[in-house]
């Protein structure tokens, strides 16, 4: 459903968009999310995933979230099996090409326990972008003729009044909350990400609220010295949380590659045991640890060290 323009504007207009510090704890930040909210996650697949935020969302037992993301990897399994969401909007859903098709995703979708709403990667991107631009749709030349089109409620076709071309009208997507992870963000919420931008910028502009977890909190002075690097301005952000290694076991560009051993361990468990395996993982790595730091300390430091050396290696070339 495309949300009414006036409603979208009122939410933004009623927010305090003044320059103010927004640094808070992970727990505090995630309480900004309500049951039933549509939560969009930044990054793509197993890169720059806001994993710490998702981990905390599951711990806070949020219910009936709509979850959308460019491409969903293992975090999608966790959200399904934990009962956090029954509705995932994405373009591709599995841990990764070399790991096969997620058995958890298959279980929940094939048994109709959850809906996987499938859009092409670009059309999902255009949905966030239309939402970010304050328009109800963007025309495009994809999805046409496919069987994806008729399965979607909100997509339409039109004949272009200028050219007569047949176009797909891709509807705006405006999540209630965006959760993003970045390498650099100041206390006000000015985000300066490194490397692959994915869809984060559009997601932030399309959402009512934005929660940013960051590898480090940099000074506003640094931001102002390189305003070219800012991708999300402070007034779009509601919470800033400092979470080093906040994407593990996924990667964060130029900071660390995935913890492939932990990924292999998870995927093996999930593929062998199905949802039961994921429940076992949730119990051990999400519900039991006292904090995100406690979770990190359960990982093998040698693996993290290697992932870090590989990750920051992009600056060694």
């Amino acid at each position: 459903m495309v949300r009414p323009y006036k409603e979208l504007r009122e939410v933004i207009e009623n927010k305090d968009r003044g320059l103010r510090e927004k640094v808070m704890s992970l727990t505090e930040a995630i309480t900004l999310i309500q049951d039933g909210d549509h939560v969009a996650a930044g990054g793509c697949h197993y890169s720059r995933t806001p994993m710490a935020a998702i981990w905390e969302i599951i711990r806070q037992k949020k219910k009936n979230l709509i979850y959308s993301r460019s491409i969903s990897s293992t975090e999608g399994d966790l959200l399904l099996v934990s009962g956090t969401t029954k509705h995932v909007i994405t373009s591709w859903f599995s841990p990764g090409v070399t790991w096969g098709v997620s058995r958890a995703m298959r279980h929940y979708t094939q048994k109709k326990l959850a809906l996987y709403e499938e859009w092409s990667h670009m059309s999902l991107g255009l949905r966030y972008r239309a939402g970010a631009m304050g328009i109800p749709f963007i025309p495009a030349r994809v999805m046409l003729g496919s069987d994806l089109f008729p399965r979607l409620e909100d997509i339409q076709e039109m004949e272009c009044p200028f050219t007569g071309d047949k176009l797909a009208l891709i509807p705006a997507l405006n999540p209630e909350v965006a959760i993003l992870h970045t390498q650099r963000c100041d206390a006000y919420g000015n985000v300066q990400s490194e490397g692959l931008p994915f869809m984060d910028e559009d997601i932030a502009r399309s959402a009512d609220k934005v929660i940013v977890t960051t590898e480090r909190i940099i000074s506003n002075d640094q931001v102002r010295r390189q305003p070219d690097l800012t991708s999300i301005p402070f007034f779009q952000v509601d919470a800033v949380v400092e979470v080093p290694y906040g994407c593990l076991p996924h990667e964060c560009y130029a900071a660390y590659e995935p913890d492939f051993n932990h990924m292999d361990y998870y995927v093996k468990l999930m593929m062998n045991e199905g949802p039961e395996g994921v429940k076992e993982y949730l119990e051990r790595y999400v519900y039991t640890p006292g904090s995100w730091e406690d979770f990190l300390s359960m990982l093998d430091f040698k693996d993290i060290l290697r992932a870090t050396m590989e990750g920051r290696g992009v600056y060694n070339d």
Partner: protein
Amino acid sequence: MTKTAYNTAELVAIMSARVLEDGKIVFGGAGMPLISCVLAQKMHAPRLTILFEGGVIGPHIDPHKMPPSTNEQRAARRGHMVLPITDVLLLQQRGYVDYGFLGGAQIDQYGNLNSSYIGDPDNPKVRLPGTGGANDIASLATKILVAMHHEKRRFVEAVDFITTPGYLQGGDSREQAGLIAGGIHQVITHLGLFGFDPKSKRMLIQALHPGATVDEVKERTGFEIMIPDEIPLTEEPTEEELRILRELDPEQRYTKAVEE
């Protein structure tokens, strides 16, 4: 000297790489397409520019660190530019991309691909991961290439679900649907190279790989494939191609022999 043996996946990777012309721009999917693109660069196409869905233009992939996904930092190594996913995909809509290079789980006689559902979409036997950028690439890139293993269960008369448009129902149905640019250009399998009839848009045999026969193709194809009178043979993989390919994928993560 004796010839090095190769498996069917290696054959497909090498034959695919040969299709990619130097100086062109290819939008590569994960897995085998990626391997073939890098192989082509190391062979005849050093000026081939690779675009990845993750949002990178012209990366230098480290042969010893092939990215398992095209949406991660290994896939972005030493690129000319990184950009948002939506924008790198939009470059195809603008017409900058020569080849859209995909793998496929299931293809039909009109080149439509399915990566969403095996069986009835409302009660699927298998829910597959989905389109990712495949629908976009196949709707927008100038020439679509598909690399896959040639099996009857994969080469079906009509796919269970059109995730990724080929020529839809054939004839001019693709254009009628609004897809007025591009189209599926070639299918590369371990048996040969396959194109599409200009008029009916049905799949036809373009060439066979050494050792493959028309009968084997017919036997492994779940629909009536068009057979021209003259069928050229492709050149066998060279020692150099095999050597480089195995440097790129020493553990055969992307080129292991397919079990049927």
